[in-house]
């Protein structure tokens, strides 16, 4: 019989890194992302009995995190810079020649409109399907497919070297 605490330990160790990253891309501030992540897990602990399937754990946590983030803005307007105005951290686990590329992609990602950035992050960071993203965002799978398609187009256009946005998937 696995105890509730053991189950929670395993959940935290398996998911906290990605959840922190998702929190960071939601709010654009490392300290706030840390607080949001902690608060998310505290709420998850309090309602852990509601988690029936381990496969649904990540989606469940993302739901709690997004609510926490929304609640933060209901309570007060944090005194933070907009996400597209911040200095983005460099990854510390990549080869030096990759750091430059990462910084460019991050800046482009930070400038993406939230309606494109959020579903794309859920797909890339969380590995969610369009159907799962639609369920989480209260949207439709078709709308999510359009959003993630356009998100990639906009990113590639912003990064240059891929031609204009509309030509990204131009056929030969």
């Amino acid at each position, binding site marked *: 019989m696995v105890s509730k605490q053991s189950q*929670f330990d395993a959940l*935290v160790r398996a998911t906290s890194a990605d959840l922190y990253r998702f929190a960071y891309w939601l709010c654009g501030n490392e300290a706030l992302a840390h607080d949001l992540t902690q608060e998310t897990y505290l709420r998850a602990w309090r309602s852990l009995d509601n988690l029936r399937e381990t496969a649904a754990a990540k989606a469940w946590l993302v739901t709690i995190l997004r609510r926490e983030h929304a609640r933060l803005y209901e309570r*007060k307007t944090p005194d933070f810079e907009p996400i597209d105005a911040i200095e983005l951290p460099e990854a510390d686990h990549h080869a030096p020649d990759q750091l430059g590329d990462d910084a460019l992609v991050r800046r482009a990602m930070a400038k993406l409109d939230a309606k494109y950035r959020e579903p794309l992050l859920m797909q890339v960071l969380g590995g969610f399907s369009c159907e799962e993203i639609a369920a989480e965002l209260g949207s439709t799978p078709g709308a999510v497919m359009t959003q993630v398609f356009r998100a990639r187009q906009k990113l590639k256009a912003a990064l240059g070297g891929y031609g204009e946005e509309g030509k990204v998937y131009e056929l030969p």
Partner: protein
Amino acid sequence: MNCLEFRRAIGTDPRGLDAAALAHRAACPRCNEAHERALQFERSLSAAVAIAVPENLAERILLHQTTAALHEPRTRRMPVWSIAAACVVGIALAATLGWRIFVANASLTDLAVAHLAHEPFALSARAEVDGSAVRAMFASLGVPITRSPGTVHYLNDCPLDGHMSVHMVMQRDSGPVTAMYVPRLHEARRDFERAGVRGRESTLGDGTLILLAADAREFDAIESQFQYAFAGGDGSAVGAP
């Protein structure tokens, strides 16, 4: 699947191609190259969004959780008789209020009274909640108070009418008194009785304080304690009347 459909598919989810897309890729060298480029971009994207995670993040989260769990008021053990008594009170309340409460256009008062039945254990809580936990709960809802409003025996943050509220119970000589504070909602001051529950709503700071009990004799004293708790700093938090 034709080339256009394939390009749309790799733009939507390059790592999640279905059988038809994979068959097209195998038959079309140009689309195969396009898919390779899309996967290369995907690798760059994954690496870029994977920002560095704070050192010992999981351990910090677990420390935060285990520390909070130790001080969680609702996790305190209660005697079996106390649990049974609370259940009886809760069931009786739910049965008494029942249909009266869950009517259309329920007011804040109705919802607060109905909420009593949702957490029946609260009414029999006897262990004192640390004052710092009370202040922290208010602070978490964006309401700083300078001191705890008297001795609190149950503390929780509960949704009420779409707003998060601080739900407290204070054991007094006249019996348990439930106090709920709803930030940023303003109701006119009034006393009421609803299905055998006596109540009072009053504006306090930037929100509404709701007191509920079988006996209202402690309401004045408890309301004063709350006003005192809110009256820190320049005293501007104290609401009218």
